[in-house]
């Protein structure tokens, strides 16, 4: 109940901001990216945080979402909502397939296998002429929908909607029986199995949901850039950020990735504008090291330590 009121307030605030003439257009460019990372971090956390299966393949799921959107746009001129839904379906399917192939691997072996997915998918897209191959494809944005004044403002609101949806899904997974099963898997897979937890099924479920959300996050990207090309779509930065943000925020609670994305995403945007885009990666690296060493349970863990009674 409290949660749904919170959701309503956040969405209303996002909508009002998007419609307000007082807010600088650049804000929406930057906020879109932060929200996109919120979706990615939240999605990553479902498998990586709850179940402890570290996925380095975020970029692959994200980019496949983008490419699905492009194909639908070019082929049928499909509207954005359809692109997002289809991207979620395709990336979810990819998650299921990848899960079937790799989820029997544990620990580092699973992580390595997921890196491979990026290279495979990137190679495929590079050699697919229809979506522009290695040089990429310029896209013409359709007209903006009412009541939004610009396309970027609309995309900002769409991404806010996706972020809320992603967080709600993650929250549901966490507090339902699925969440306890995933935690049991992270703690001891063998004991989980012997306590009646269908570990492979739960992992497949988590991988599918996680992949679908990542794909949905990638779908609006081509329209945001009016362009798509493989190298930046499959950038390892997506994988690293999606992993770093929950680590920094805290992986055990749905709030963790949200905090991490807001914190790290905002810092990145500020650093990009004030210093340079290259420093971005350094920021992630330094923060990640600091947190792993000094606050392994993230911002949430720090709070818990400082105010133990509230947990």
């Amino acid at each position, binding site marked *: 109940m409290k949660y749904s009121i919170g959701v309503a307030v956040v969405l209303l605030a996002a909508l009002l901001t998007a419609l307000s003439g007082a807010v600088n257009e650049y804000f929406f460019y930057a906020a879109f990216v932060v929200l996109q990372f919120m979706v990615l971090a939240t999605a990553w956390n479902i498998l990586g945080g709850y179940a402890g299966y570290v996925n380095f393949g975020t970029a692959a799921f994200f980019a496949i979402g983008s490419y699905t959107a492009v194909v639908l746009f070019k082929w049928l001129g499909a509207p954005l909502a359809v692109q997002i839904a289809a991207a979620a379906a395709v990336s979810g399917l990819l998650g299921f397939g990848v899960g079937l192939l790799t989820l029997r691997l544990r620990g580092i072996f699973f992580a390595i296998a997921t890196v491979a997915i990026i290279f495979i998918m990137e190679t495929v897209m590079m050699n697919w002429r229809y979506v522009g191959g290695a040089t990429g494809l310029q896209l013409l944005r359709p007209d903006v929908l009412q009541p939004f004044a610009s396309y970027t403002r609309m995309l900002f609101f769409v991404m806010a909607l996706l972020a809320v949806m992603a967080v709600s899904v993650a929250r549901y997974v966490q507090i339902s029986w699925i969440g306890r099963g995933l935690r*049991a898997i*992270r*703690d*001891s897979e063998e*004991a989980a*199995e*012997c*306590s009646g*937890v*269908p570990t492979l099924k739960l992992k497949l479920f988590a991988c599918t949901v996680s992949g679908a959300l990542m794909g949905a996050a990638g779908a609006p990207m081509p329209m945001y850039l009016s362009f798509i090309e493989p190298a930046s779509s499959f950038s390892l930065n997506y994988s690293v950020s999606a992993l770093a943000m929950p680590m920094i925020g805290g992986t055990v609670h749905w709030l963790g990735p949200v905090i991490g994305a807001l914190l790290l995403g905002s810092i990145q945007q500020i650093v990009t504008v004030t210093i340079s885009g290259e420093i971005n990666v350094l920021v992630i690296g330094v923060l990640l090291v600091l947190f792993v060493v000094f606050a392994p349970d993230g911002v949430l863990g720090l709070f818990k330590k400082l105010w133990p009674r509230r947990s």
Partner: protein
Amino acid sequence: MAAPLLKVQGVSKHFGGFTALSEVSIAITPGERFGLIGPNGSGKTTLINCISGSLRHDSGSIEFQGQEISGLPAYRRTRKGIARSFQIPRPFRSMSVLENLLVPYEYVVHLKQSDAEQQAMEILRRIGLADKAHAPASQLSQVELRKLELARAMAAKPRLLISDEAMAGLSGSEVDEVLKILFSLNAEGITIIMIEHIMQAVMRFSQRVVCLDAGKIICEGAPAAIVADPGVQRAYLGA
């Protein structure tokens, strides 16, 4: 004799060139208290892993309540009524002690959260962990972890409970406590396989004992006969 609850027939398991189990056959009747002994590395835990589904055996068959279960994943076997404790405790460290028991209640017994918590508390009281119910499992001592292993297995409401060295490291009075619990579970109709190095405990508890050595059954019979068996003495003491 009643139809066996668990029938292991000709089960073999190899790890590379090493034969951990060769042609092991045992039949356990419903309600039996069964002891499994043998020196370290004789294949006791491997056999348990094959029965509970943590490992797949290479050949032979395992039937539970007249049904072949060899192909089933471990969680399905647990749902059919085979629960086990682990020799090296594998607690769910990120959860409280109570939550550890809620996992099997949620996934095997399918109880409502409130009922599950009530019954889980009951088990914790019985095993002597009630005051630790809300403590994180990561803070338990070795002895408490062993009790938690047993408690979690009990929470799965098994027909067959496999206790893999639940008493190692326990003091004499604690061994008596755990034995009392196992006896009372058995009185409720639960069949129990006990793996134990503490001889006086196995011998007191079991109606029938099997001794494994190098993956083979070398002796089977009543506790007294086992202790007197020269083969068993050779396996343990060397000849």
